[in-house]
């Protein structure tokens, strides 16, 4: 009842959430990318801990990699890496201020996918969340409220309602939390075995190897 009331409500959600979403996502991605700058060469460079050629084996065939693009465009790997290193934060800055927001978001998503696919071994959960958020930044009308786009393109028709977009996002978050909990429940037998003091992953590993 509560849910149907919520989804059938004609009341408009304040559009400030989309401004917060745009600024939050871009700022977070910027800071996250900035935090690896000191070790950028150790993670992405030709002399990285895992060389690009070795990473290529485990990378997804559906997504671009820096090595793949460098071969395709016939550019040196180091030069392309330098271009991406500057282009990614610039596109995120565009998203942050709301200047050519959608174009900036598409560019940022493409570069984010390229970067994460190039260092598959060094990726973790946060990267998946960043990808999800940037994907929604491409779909949602992020540049239509409190952005430079609004100031520049005054004659453009703007949306009034953002309810549906918020629902999509909320629905996705519900799926994330539901399946996160379900995954933990699914291994309840394993958890019980652990409780009875039989095995942890570490001891299981030792048993396998001995």
């Amino acid at each position, binding site marked *: 009842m509560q849910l149907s009331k919520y989804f059938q409500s004609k009341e408009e959600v304040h559009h400030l959430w989309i401004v917060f979403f745009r600024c939050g996502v871009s700022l977070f991605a910027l800071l996250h990318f900035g*935090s690896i700058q000191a070790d950028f060469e150790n993670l992405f460079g030709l002399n990285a*801990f895992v060389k690009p050629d070795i990473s290529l084996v485990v990378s997804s065939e559906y997504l671009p990699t820096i090595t793949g693009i460098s071969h395709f465009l016939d550019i040196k790997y180091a030069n392309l890496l330098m271009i991406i290193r500057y282009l990614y934060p610039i596109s995120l800055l565009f998203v942050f201020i709301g200047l050519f927001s959608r174009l900036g978001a598409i560019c940022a998503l493409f570069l984010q996918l390229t970067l994460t696919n190039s260092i598959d071994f060094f990726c973790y959960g946060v990267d998946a969340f960043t990808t999800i958020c940037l994907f929604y930044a491409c779909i949602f009308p992020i540049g239509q409220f409190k952005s430079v786009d609004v100031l520049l393109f005054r004659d453009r028709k703007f949306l009034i309602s953002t309810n549906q977009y918020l629902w999509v996002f909320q629905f996705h978050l519900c799926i*994330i939390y539901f399946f996160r909990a379900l995954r933990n429940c699914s291994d309840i037998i394993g958890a019980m075995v652990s409780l009875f003091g039989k095995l942890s*992953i*570490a001891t299981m590993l030792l048993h*396998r190897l001995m």
Partner: protein
Amino acid sequence: MAYGRISGTGSGYGFFAPNVKANGLILGDCDGTIISPEFRSYESSVRFNSLSSRVTDYLVDMGDSISIEKQQMEAQYYDLLFKNIAVKMYGQHHCRSDTFYVSYNILTFPTLAQFRQRKGVGEHKLRPVKEVKLTKLDYK
């Protein structure tokens, strides 16, 4: 499949499921001195730890592959990966030794029975489960 990768929805949501994984440490041995990979930011160390996590996954699932050929290929691939890390660490620490070892170690804790008997309480040991040797060759 491609949609799942592009939208990020295909990455799975089982964070820390079914439990927090026992993580390992990648350590090098340069002439008796234990060394570890050096990073200038915490975020990079976290990223390197996710590599360790992948190695744990590999060692846990080792032998689950359908064909022996695939198992051998995986073993060769992870050997190559370790050698790559070893070369990087060797250069990073300016190691002068001719032989350099890099190992993947897991923390072993006392069992519950030992814990009840108060044996080894508060102690943990590093146990190498995979090791590669790097030897410097002189072609002169």
